[in-house]
């Protein structure tokens, strides 16, 4: 099967399915190698980008999904109503960040970091489909572990957890320097 032909079939499949489709699943249906599917998707993506087309393809956790080009949002919103699924308050965002970076994580670990109870925030995030229960921790009380979902990746435009803004020792160091600088700049306030 030629690349162009694979591209066309993949395009039709991604269009019709709407949701994410794994490359391996497409490969099986077409009886070709998975890497051929990935090659076709990348080629398709490039040709969409080259012509600044109205559609594009995004990758989420090794699966692919067709979506609109963000550049046409302005026109699209005049016709289609973007379903506003949820509003994330600061509390929800903070809780979500902790879960995203420390998953799998229990509620009590989240509470330790935020210094406040997180029952409400976690259940809201689960309700919004951004987080999900992952199973129980094999520890006293068998507390529930939480993690982020595919919907989280989609809503935040990242293709995998690894793609989140880095949170490393260097970042913590930066905070330290930032804090020290601040302190040096003011000195006499006590």
């Amino acid at each position: 099967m030629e690349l162009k032909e694979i591209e066309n079939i993949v395009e039709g499949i991604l269009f019709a399915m709407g949701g994410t489709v794994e490359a391996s699943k497409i490969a099986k249906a077409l009886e070709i190698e998975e890497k051929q599917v990935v090659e076709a998707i990348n080629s398709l993506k490039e040709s969409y980008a080259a012509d600044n087309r109205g559609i594009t393809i995004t990758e989420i956790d090794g699966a692919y999904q067709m979506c609109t080009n963000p550049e046409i949002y302005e026109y699209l919103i005049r016709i289609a109503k973007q379903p506003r699924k949820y509003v994330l308050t600061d509390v929800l965002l903070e809780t979500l960040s902790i879960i995203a970076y420390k998953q799998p994580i229990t509620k009590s670990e989240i509470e330790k970091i935020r210094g406040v109870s997180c029952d409400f925030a976690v259940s809201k995030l689960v309700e919004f489909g951004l987080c999900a229960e992952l199973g129980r921790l094999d520890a006293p009380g068998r507390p529930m572990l939480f993690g982020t979902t595919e919907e989280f990746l989609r809503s935040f435009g990242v293709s995998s957890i690894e793609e989140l803004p880095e949170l490393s020792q260097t970042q913590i160091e930066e905070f330290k320097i930032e804090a020290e600088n601040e302190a040096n700049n003011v000195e006499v306030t006590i």
Partner: protein
Amino acid sequence: MEMNVKLQVFEGPLDLLLHLIDKNKVDIYDIPIVEITDQYMEYVRAMDNSDLDVMSEFLLMATTLLDIKSRMLLPQEEKTEEGEEPEDPRAELVQQLLEYKMYKTISYQLRDRQLDASLVFYKEPTIPDEVLKYQQPVDLEELMADLTLNKLNDIFQQVLKRQDNRRDPIRSTFGKIKKEEVSLEQKMEWTIAFAKAHNTFSFRNLLEAAHSKTEVIVTFLCILEMMKAGQINITQEDTFTDIMIESRIAA
């Protein structure tokens, strides 16, 4: 120092502390604990204390602060025997504040990403009818792979044996004792209702619902009864052909 924090809502005690540190422009590693504790307590006293859960979280931090404050006021310990610096009572709190601050910063970055991502539209699946209606053909070869004629024969014998076992060997010899499956009264009611709903119908129509020989015979008796009562007329063109029934009580 001016306190205009009363109107502001904080996510929790750490949030409030970060605000106070920021506002006083002090080093997070060298928190002026007396000053900050006083301000913190002032805020907590001004808080709406109707929500006990929230209040208790702020009070818990207050006790931590007071504990640190008292330890700071104690005369500085000499260096330990190993020559290490004594631990700063504020160290643990500083770590907690730093970690919290880190996630707070990250959460702002995530918010920006969410804004960008919200410019993208996805769509619901639109699977064509041809695909939805598709029925997978049956692969007989695969379906029958494990089945042989001998196996089919075995299965049939087992079925027959089971049927045999179901029959009570003693009771079955009584033979003639049978439960009345259909009551004449009930069938009569049903047949009259049928005759009321139909102008003409055949005897076979009536029998479509019959489950047993008994029921067929009862139905036949009903028809005879109704004919006697003048509720129906019956005609039959030839021997063994269907009996046509004309209803006189049809609505």
